């Protein structure tokens, strides 16, 4: 059925509404309707006042003037982002400037480039929320000085610097019984935070992560639950093994330094830096030595030898990637800059890169570096960033 026939049927239906439908047209319509039941339903819907009224409400809610405005803004945005990627992949002089950016973040250049993009995503900062068993919530961040300092809340003693929350060893809490509820520290997208647990273990939490732990470690084990990513430096205590439980893995240690990454929907991994751990999955117990990593994919678990330092660069000032896919890299950027990045082209997504990115720069800086190295261009809108090959 071609476009002309659509129009004919629509015109006939409209003429029924008009009250001016001749016999000939009625025959055409009847013949058309009789071929399919769904067509009869269509005609009866379209002659029903209630259906027409609600349909018109929807129809008129799509305003073409608003739509045109949105389109014009998008056109401007694309022109600007094309300018950025051309700068990054252009002449030798400009290439030198980009290399300089990699080595020495130059604030002067940053000022200039901010004019070129209307939407500039800011890097993350220290922020977190603490949930106590009695329901109290504490917002912690480097911006809120009110939450910084030493204090006691709900019977627990803390110290908060705006970047790190420390629990004091609760020597005088012997009376507490049956503490089933745990404490939860939540780090949002675009955030990061450090935690010192009641036993002195230090934890660095990456963006979009959450750790659940008891107010003091009483049991035979020190057990915590993690979603997202954290790096641990565990205080040695052979009588009380430390266990990090995630959805698919349990990592058991006695005293050691390791990184656990368990974001929902992504492959989980545990990387050991020093000491020793045993990673338990559903069907295996995998002991690790320093420099080794357990990777859990849909197919099962794999053990790799890695440069462990790469996997904890996030807790310092950089994101270091060695032969990682573009997809993996943008996922981390999505969490840190709290933005959506779409890679429609599978070849681009699976491309492997080795790159070292500064964490605390505005996103356009990072995108420049990536577009230079990976031969891609970025289309930036308010809602998301799309990555396309740049030929």
């Amino acid at each position: 059925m071609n476009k002309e026939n659509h129009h004919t049927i629509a015109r006939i239906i409209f003429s029924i509404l008009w009250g001016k439908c001749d016999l000939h047209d009625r025959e055409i319509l009847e013949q058309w309707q009789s071929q399919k039941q769904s067509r009869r339903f269509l005609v009866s819907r379209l002659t029903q006042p209630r259906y027409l009224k609600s349909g018109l409400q929807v129809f008129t809610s799509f305003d073409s003037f608003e739509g045109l405005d949105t389109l014009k803004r998008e056109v401007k945005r694309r022109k600007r982002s094309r300018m950025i990627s051309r700068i990054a992949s252009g002449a030798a002089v400009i290439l030198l400037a980009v290399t300089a950016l990699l080595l020495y973040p130059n604030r002067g250049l940053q000022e200039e480039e901010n004019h070129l993009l209307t939407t500039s995503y800011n890097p993350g900062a220290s922020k977190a929320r603490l949930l106590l068993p009695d329901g109290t919530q504490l917002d912690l961040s480097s911006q809120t000085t009110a939450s910084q300092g030493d204090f006691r809340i709900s019977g627990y003693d803390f110290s908060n610097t705006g970047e790190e929350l420390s629990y004091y060893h609760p020597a005088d809490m012997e009376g507490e019984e049956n503490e089933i509820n745990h404490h939860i520290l939540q780090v949002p997208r675009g955030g990061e935070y450090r935690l010192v647990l009641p036993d002195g273990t230090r934890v660095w939490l990456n963006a979009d992560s959450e750790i659940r732990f008891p107010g003091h470690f009483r049991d035979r084990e020190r057990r915590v639950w993690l979603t997202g990513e954290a790096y641990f430096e565990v205080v040695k205590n052979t009588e009380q093994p430390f266990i990090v439980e995630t959805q698919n893995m349990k990592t058991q240690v006695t005293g050691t330094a390791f990184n656990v990454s368990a974001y929902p929907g992504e492959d989980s991994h545990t990387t050991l830096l020093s000491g020793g751990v045993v990673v338990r999955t559903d069907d295996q117990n995998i002991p690790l030595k320093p420099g080794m990593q357990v990777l859990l994919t849909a197919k099962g678990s794999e053990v790799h030898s890695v440069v462990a330092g790469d996997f904890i660069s996030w807790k310092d000032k950089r994101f270091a990637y060695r032969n990682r896919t573009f997809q993996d890299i943008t996922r981390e950027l999505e969490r840190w800059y709290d933005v959506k990045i779409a890679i429609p082209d599978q070849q681009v997504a699976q491309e492997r890169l080795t790159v070292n990115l500064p964490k605390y720069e505005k996103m356009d800086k990072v995108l420049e570096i990536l577009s230079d190295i990976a031969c891609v261009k970025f289309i930036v809108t308010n809602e998301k960033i799309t990555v396309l090959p740049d030929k």
Partner: protein
Amino acid sequence: MNRIENDEQLITDLNTGDKRAFEAIFHRFYTPLCFFANRFVEDEEAARDIVQEIFMWLYEKKVTFDSLLGVKSYLYSGVHNKSINHLEKKRSQSRIREKIKAGLSEAMEEADEYLIETEVFEMIFSAIEELPSACRQIFKMSYIEGKGIRDIASQLNISEATVKTQRQRAKKYLRERLENFYPMLLSLFF
């Protein structure tokens, strides 16, 4: 949204990249295309995004057309494809399973029916657009958006008496100019 434009001239201008022609095409097809997309994806925001992307293609790809019907085909088939894509991405499992079971011809039939719906609504909308501008706005706010006289008066910063007068004018105009259509509109809005 005047159709005074000569269609041939419009296409020639569009092909040479004339911005004004692009905008005329935009205004002509934007609303029905969004309505069409929305019938598939049942998500007004997503429908707007889809239609915007198709117009971006039109703006950037510099395709040449030989008729208005050609432009219309291009736009509608683009929106159709993107809508199906969107449904698949959203993993609306049950809807996809339905469609796969039904087969390709059923999918085309569905598109045809949504197209007919869209055209009928376009025609009704055009009839309303023929009202003189002052009473048209009040007619829309009264009978399509369902706003009360007091709301309309305060929103447009006019007196309630004026609102009532304009509503009467709209009814009178419709009664005179759109004779036989009037009873149908009446039942729609009263």
